[in-house]
């Protein structure tokens, strides 16, 4: 009876049981450290972990601004994914904003500037270490665009129910003033995560009209006669043409070199026509022969200076590559030089052609985002010096301006004339499809210079896909030029 109460001593076993309990609790802590520290990164990054998604939508998304006013917004749904995107004039600005969907990700500016808009950009979230400690996201910053709301609306209304696109830039700076694609869609339909969103997604993707296709930058078209601006620039720069009014030795019809195919014109009077007349009346024969006379290397150099064959154009979202085929025989070169064969261009590319002419041959890289700001409006990234290049000699640009002004004054583009302003343009009506059976595309590229201004304030390209099929009545001048005129008028009225 060694211990109290008699019997065997118990204290050593109690102590051992105590150690056992301590070990159990220590094992808990070691395992907690494993889960919360060692494996934490892998668990946090597991795609099935909703926390990253919840954090993304926990703060109001920053806005995209047009003309100083936001065209986007955020609504507090009170759901787990709290803030949902809203859009003012969604269809009007969809080719610029894109959508920000809780189900389908982001596109266009919503995508390229997602870091700023969602507030995760290090420039906005600030001190990274502090952010790691606190892990609470701040509100997103804003993206200020270069768009001119009046020009944008004029282009959208001008296109109306037709399929087409408009791109307008400011030649002296490269600021994009309008970017429209129709038919459009309302990106607000895709913002949330409900059943309605997935059905809207399916409907938009299966719509034969392709409302989510951004035709202004993501679709290329045969530029047709509007490409004659490029051919004329190459011919002038190469010295193939020295006098705009001298008669060219151009047969009508023109037999494509090495073939028996005969190229004809819509109208009469193109045989041996001067470059000025041929430009005003859009003579295919003259410009096809001109392209062949200039040759592949010089034509390629000029086209690529304008931006053709460049796959890396970003605005900041990627722009589809406009093409000028460089491995062509002389017959193919002839067709390429009048914007057919494998020559294709986005509406934005053709606006850049008009802008280069308007800006004395100097092409400013187009850009859509003026600056990004913190939520309090403080600028993050201002306008920096953007690259530009001399596409053609200044003298060449001056003579091309003359030619384009002639088209509007007395040629195929009189529909684009604006009283009190100098307007230059070029029509195009591109055939496509097997045996030219497809509905032709009506093109118009132009610029407008207010009286007293040193350089044109706006260059614009318009394409209308389903222009009425009767070739005799429609042309770029009939369908596309009035839209271009309204866009230019909106810009000049500022």
């Amino acid at each position: 009876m060694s211990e109290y109460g008699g019997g065997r001593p118990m204290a050593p076993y109690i102590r051992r049981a105590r150690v056992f309990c301590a070990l159990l609790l220590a094992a808990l802590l070691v395992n907690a450290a494993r889960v919360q520290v060692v494996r934490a990164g892998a668990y946090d990054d597991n795609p099935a972990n909703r926390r990253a998604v919840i954090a993304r939508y926990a703060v109001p998304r920053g806005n995209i601004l047009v003309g100083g006013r936001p065209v986007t917004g955020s609504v507090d749904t009170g759901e787990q994914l709290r803030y949902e995107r809203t859009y003012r004039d969604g269809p009007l600005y969809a080719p610029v904003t894109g959508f920000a969907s809780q189900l389908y990700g982001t596109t266009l500016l919503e995508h390229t500037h997602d870091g700023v808009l969602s507030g995760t950009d290090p420039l906005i979230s600030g001190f990274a270490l502090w952010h790691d400690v606190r892990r609470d996201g701040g509100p997103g910053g804003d993206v200020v665009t270069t768009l001119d709301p009046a020009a944008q609306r004029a282009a959208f209304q001008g296109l109306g129910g037709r399929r087409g696109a408009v791109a307008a830039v400011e030649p002296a700076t490269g600021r994009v003033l309008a970017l429209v694609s129709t038919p459009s869609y309302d990106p607000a339909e895709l913002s949330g995560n409900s059943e309605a969103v997935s059905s809207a997604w399916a409907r938009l993707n299966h719509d034969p009209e392709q409302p989510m296709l951004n035709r202004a930058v993501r679709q290329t078209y045969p530029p047709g006669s509007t490409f004659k601006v490029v051919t004329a620039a190459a011919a002038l720069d190469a010295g193939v043409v020295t006098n705009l009014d001298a008669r060219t030795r151009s047969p009508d019809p023109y037999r494509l070199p090495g073939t028996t195919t005969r190229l004809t014109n819509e109208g009469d009077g193109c045989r041996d026509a001067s470059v000025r007349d041929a430009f005003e009346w859009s003579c295919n024969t003259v410009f096809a022969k001109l392209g062949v006379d200039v040759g592949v290397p010089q034509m390629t150099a000029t086209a690529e200076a304008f931006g053709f064959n460049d796959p890396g154009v970003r605005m900041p979202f990627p722009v589809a590559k406009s093409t000028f085929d460089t491995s062509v025989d002389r017959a193919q070169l002839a067709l390429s030089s009048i914007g057919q064969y494998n020559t294709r261009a986005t509406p934005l590319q053709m606006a850049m052609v008009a802008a280069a002419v308007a800006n004395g041959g100097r092409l400013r890289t187009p850009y859509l985002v003026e600056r990004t700001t913190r939520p309090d409006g403080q600028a993050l990234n201002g306008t920096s010096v953007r690259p530009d290049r001399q596409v053609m000699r200044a003298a060449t640009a001056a003579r091309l301006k003359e030619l384009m002004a002639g088209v509007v004054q007395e040629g195929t583009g009189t529909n684009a004339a604006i009283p009190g302003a100098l307007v230059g343009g070029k029509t195009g009506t591109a055939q496509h499809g097997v045996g030219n059976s497809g509905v032709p595309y009506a093109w118009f590229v132009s610029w407008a210079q207010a009286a007293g201004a040193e350089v044109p304030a706006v260059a614009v390209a318009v394409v209308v896909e389903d222009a009425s099929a009767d070739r005799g009545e429609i042309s770029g001048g009939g369908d596309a030029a009035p839209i271009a005129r309204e866009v230019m008028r909106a810009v000049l009225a500022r």
Partner: protein
Amino acid sequence: MSKVGPAPVAAPPAVGARVGRRRGVELALIVLAVLLSVYGYCAVGLARTGSVPPGAAGYGAGLGVLALCAHVAVRIRAPYADPLPLPIAVLLNGLGLVLIYRLDLETPHDRAAPAQLVWSTLGVALFIAVVLVLRDHRVLQRYSYVCVVAALALLALPILFPAVNGARIWVRIAGFSIQPGEFAKVLLAVFFAAYLAANRNALAYTGRRLWRMQFPTGRVLGPIVAIWLLSVGVLVLERDLGTSLLFFGLFVVLLYVATGRTGWIAVGVLLAVGGAYAVGQVEPHVAGRIDDWLRPFATIDAGRGPNQLAQSLFAFAAGGVTGTGLGLGHSVLIGFAVKSDFVLATAGEELGLAGLAAIVLLYGVLVERGYRAGLALREPFGRLLAVGLASLLALQVFVIAGGVTGLIPLTGMAMPFLAQGGSSVVTNWAIVALLIRVSDSARGQYDGREAP
């Protein structure tokens, strides 16, 4: 809430001196515990709505009054009691109410905090009743067979009621859900302690020897094994494997402490492994739990999204070292049982590893104080009762916390004091009351031989 003041360590008293009563220390710590809880309550409101929640004063006053009543009862009837268990219980209960209130904000149609507050009040009332009525814990020894009959009756009761979420452990009366198995824990601990105290010499010395191990005679061992088998059998029938594991662990620990025979541990582990294997073969429910434990992300790989254990691991991981802060986590993604079985995940996410360690340390101190009382007592029943109650807490914390952090297979069980569940809160207050009563005896009769 992640900061818990360092637990004051009682200075070792001079040999021969009586232990100080230390009621003032207890009161100070209770005030601290109530203030910490109120701070947590306010932190939730500030994080969620930017303002102090309107009920903060009422919540603090309610918790404070409850704690003060308990304190007064201890002052009157257990003046020598250990000053630590009561403040720790108040802090854990207060923190549990904060976590449940915080999770209620995510489920506005299913509010659990008001009911939990009512149950906490009942728990404190039971605490006071035990401290006031039970003048000497040795009285319980006389009622050991009443305890075991009551325990078995409580365990068997839910069989008469429909199963809830796969487990037949609930009794629903007049809108209240009661888990009788929770109360049975304490009663079984009392019975085990009384029985082993009476029979420990027979268990240790009589019987036959088989290959270096001493096996007691069937006459002594029979009743205790029968009761254990019965309780485990009832639990397997009710599919509540966490409680089954808990009883088993309690049984083995007490048997070891009473007899000092390491053979019991070997037999116990063998029984546990064999039993787990057998149950795993028969019960798809259990086999599924083990699969989940081995491969917590299997449902993700199978394209069915994360299961509760995966969500719980995500919650702990999101907390990291410092936590997101109260009210700012997303542990509600766990879904069902987020306020009960998985409540620790909310603590892990919002208070971080630091807060979790503080909580585990609080449990550790509570367990250690129980063991300390056991070491200081002079008679075997009190020693075994103190060790049994302390081990019960430690095992329960290990089983549920280990389950939700992926250390062991998940078994449904309530985190003591923290989790939603009236029966659990009331039972844990009873455990703390008994620890207070036992420690009062230990420290009151302290003779300098073993520091209480």
